[in-house]
């Protein structure tokens, strides 16, 4: 059984080499100022415009990939719950959901209200552009992360929290040289994490 997500041509290009990735990053770092075309020929400006549009497309595709993976993993599990968690108001995110923030952070996070605390569920790409999950629960009363830190999770989760966040082990789902990725392993890990968290929180088994 598989659950495959296609890796766009743009992202395949980005991860194919350091030259490609650094080139795109360099284009994205250009700040829009009236003088950045100083000294350029018309042909160079047109070429740069095309390159900026291309780099922007890479950024958009990256956002869409993370969002798609989030919806297919954490989102899929949460959809089976009935009212135990609710997402925070959109205003709580500030600008964290923007293209730039997602790109710069290399991750996409959604925040939920669970019991008397906050549940953060994240999808990100590691240093080798591999897909990974992360989560933590912040207790509203005690302001600690004991509930999620203390969970006993399977081997594909790192045994200990990192900065009070539980993360999947590295290089679980590499994206380099891939045209698609089977996220079924991440779906299973997301389900495991939510099930055990709810049990630990005394909310019973809510996932069918």
């Amino acid at each position, binding site marked *: 059984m598989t659950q495959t997500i296609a890796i*766009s*041509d*743009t992202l395949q*290009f980005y991860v194919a*080499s*350091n*030259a*490609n990735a*650094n*080139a*795109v990053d*360099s*284009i994205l*770092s*250009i*700040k829009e*100022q009236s*003088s*950045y*075309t*100083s*000294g*350029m*020929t018309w042909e*160079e400006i047109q*070429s*740069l415009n*095309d*390159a900026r*549009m*291309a*780099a922007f*497309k*890479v950024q958009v595709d990256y956002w869409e990939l993370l969002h798609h993976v989030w919806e297919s993993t954490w989102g899929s599990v949460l959809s089976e719950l009935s009212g135990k968690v609710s997402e925070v108001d959109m205003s709580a995110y500030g600008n964290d959901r923007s293209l730039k923030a997602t790109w710069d952070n290399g991750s996409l996070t959604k925040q939920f209200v669970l019991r008397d605390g906050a549940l953060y569920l994240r999808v990100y790409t590691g240093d080798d552009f591999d897909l990974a999950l992360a989560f933590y629960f912040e207790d509203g009363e005690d302001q600690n992360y004991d509930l999620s830190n203390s969970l006993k999770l399977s081997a594909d989760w790192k045994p200990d929290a990192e900065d009070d966040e539980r993360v999947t082990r590295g290089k679980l789902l590499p994206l380099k040289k891939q045209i698609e990725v089977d996220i079924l392993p991440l779906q299973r890990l997301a389900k495991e994490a939510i099930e055990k968290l709810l049990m630990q929180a005394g909310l019973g088994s809510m996932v069918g």
Partner: protein
Amino acid sequence: MSATSIVQLLDSAALSWVAELGRNSMSKVVRKSLLPVSIRLQNSQRMSAAHLSRSLPNLEINVASAIRSYFGCLSDEHAISLPRCPLGFSPTESQLTTAIAHVLKADESVDISKRRTQRFLQALLKGACYQDAYASAIEAIDKAVSLNIESEKTVSKGRRIDLLIDWELPGGAGFAVAIEAKFEHKVTSGQLPAYRQEVCNRAKNGHWALILLTVTGESNRRNKDWTALTWRTLLTRWECLLEPDERIQHHFTLLRKLLWDKL
């Protein structure tokens, strides 16, 4: 081109959803809001099919093409492909211009020095109003009777030109290029007139160029004879002008990477 023709073109470009909406509402405001910024549908503007087809690319394919086209020579030998240099500190403007002068002088070979200087000047002066006047002079550097490359050249009252390149050709024609190079700091108006005088003195027959090289490309209003150029434009051009064997000379490549990292 009629509105109907435009809608037909959009259909063929696989943007049928835009065309569908366009059929339902042909107002100028709706069409403008639906289409990419690069396409401006104005009642008085006739859009050619070729222009429209270029403005509606299959972005999945064109990303690689656009990025490679801009950089011109994107490969593992391009300086930008190197990881960020782990020096533990960020080189100053002075250190970088000194390093540029050093690689241009290329102690190991006069021929290498002349070739590197030619490439650097070609990248620097491309597109400038005096490009044509300098093109042949730069090509002739390999026959120059003298070639001087200096960094941090003191001119007056402690002021220093970041980079000064001058050369003399057989027959006595002299050329000089002064570069004020900035990364973090702003140019102060008082600096530039002093540098201009030095460059005039160096160049015989008045062939001199003044380049203000910055990250943002800002010009200096009080010194309009200085041509503004961004480091990004210089580095992109410079990389493309290098021969493959030049691109992989280690210290030279490292310097270019350090410059890219400053952007």
